[in-house]
């Protein structure tokens, strides 16, 4: 049954790829013949984007007013400071590293897991400025994918019917954990960055990995 679904999914992806390729050839032919075919679909959401932008501007304005008008550090302010720290628990002491004092030169911070289940090896790593990622693989089919990106550009969709979810904590941060048989995904925010880890590991292992994440040396 599972293999059947995998095979069917592969067939469907291949069909989508093939038909997309044909449609792009049609698009290219039409453009080369001088037709004015729009590259993008009709904008159905233009209004909502403007609303979002406006809302963001209002929030930004509100934050600026608060920052300029208040000299007393609020409780929220203190929490924000604490939440900009990476904590790394050692045998004797817990190391705290601040994101604010680091210079990332226009790139997201590079992180690494302090703990991984046995057999996993780093097979790829990339930093594209807005997204830093690492892929660890064991036995060819098992993998752990870790990424950091700016919270503004983060978006992900998880199926509610096949995946269980729970609210948890990664050290001091609130985190969302999704899991199903032998697979799990966890996501949390540190300052302006979203960290997420997906892998073919049970949720208990995923929690251990997440709690061990620290800034790369």
């Amino acid at each position, binding site marked *: 049954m599972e293999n059947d*679904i*995998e095979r*069917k*999914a*592969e*067939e*469907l*992806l*291949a*069909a*989508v*790829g*093939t*038909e*997309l*390729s*044909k*449609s*792009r*050839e*049609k*698009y*290219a*032919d*039409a*453009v*080369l013949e*001088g037709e004015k*075919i*729009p*590259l*993008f*679909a009709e*904008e159905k*959401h*233009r209004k909502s*984007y*403007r609303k*979002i*932008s406006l809302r963001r501007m209002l929030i930004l304005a509100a934050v600026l007013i608060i920052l300029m008008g208040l000299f007393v550090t609020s409780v929220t302010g203190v929490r924000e400071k604490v939440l900009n720290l990476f904590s790394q628990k050692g045998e004797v002491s817990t190391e705290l590293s601040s994101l604010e004092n680091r210079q990332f030169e226009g790139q997201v911070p590079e992180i690494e897991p302090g703990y991984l289940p046995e057999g996993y090896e780093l*097979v*790829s*790593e*990339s930093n*594209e400025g807005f*997204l830093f*990622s690492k*892929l660890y693989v064991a036995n060819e089919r098992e993998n752990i*994918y870790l990424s950091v990106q700016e919270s503004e550009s983060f978006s992900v*969709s998880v*199926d509610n*019917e*096949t995946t269980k979810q729970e609210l948890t904590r990664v050290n001091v941060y609130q985190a969302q954990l999704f899991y199903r048989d032998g697979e799990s995904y966890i996501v949390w925010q540190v300052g302006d960055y979203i960290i997420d880890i997906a892998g073919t590991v049970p949720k208990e292992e995923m929690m251990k990995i997440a709690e061990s994440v620290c800034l790369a040396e």
Partner: protein
Amino acid sequence: MSTDARNKVAELIEQKYSRLIQHIAQEILKDACLTEDVYQEVLMKFILFHEDKFEMPPREMKNYLCAAARNTALTMAKKNGRIISAEQEEIDSRVLNMDLLDMEAFHDRYGFGPEVQELLAALDNKDKDILCLKYGEGYEDREIAEITGLSESAVRKRIYRAKLQMQTILLNHERGENDGE
């Protein structure tokens, strides 16, 4: 590749495909100079990386150029600060025109149903580029990474996610059908 061969490729693209590259770049950048820069960059990359594909079939060439021109133009827009933040967000999230996609073919040729619509809705433009180049043209992940401006691992991650999404959609449909029986 010899200088003669390079000149031939440049000439071929100029004669046959310049309008396509410029049309795509202009729609994104709305600037003649930057559009010309995109054209030159796409041309240069093609010559540098695809000397083995000099006699590429026309469909493959068009697909390559569509993806390369759009992704190069988007990268250039970001680099040049050409598009301010709100517009950038808008252009990044705009869905590619799918009017020319033959939806009936999925049913008639491959026997698939409404799950195709769900998959297409779940994919973003880069995912579609990747599927098109991988399954439509048989490109390697490394080649796709170079065309789309992603890293090789990001390409693999997107393919993996698309497969997971597809399996979830198919499972949901099967469960729905079983519940209906």
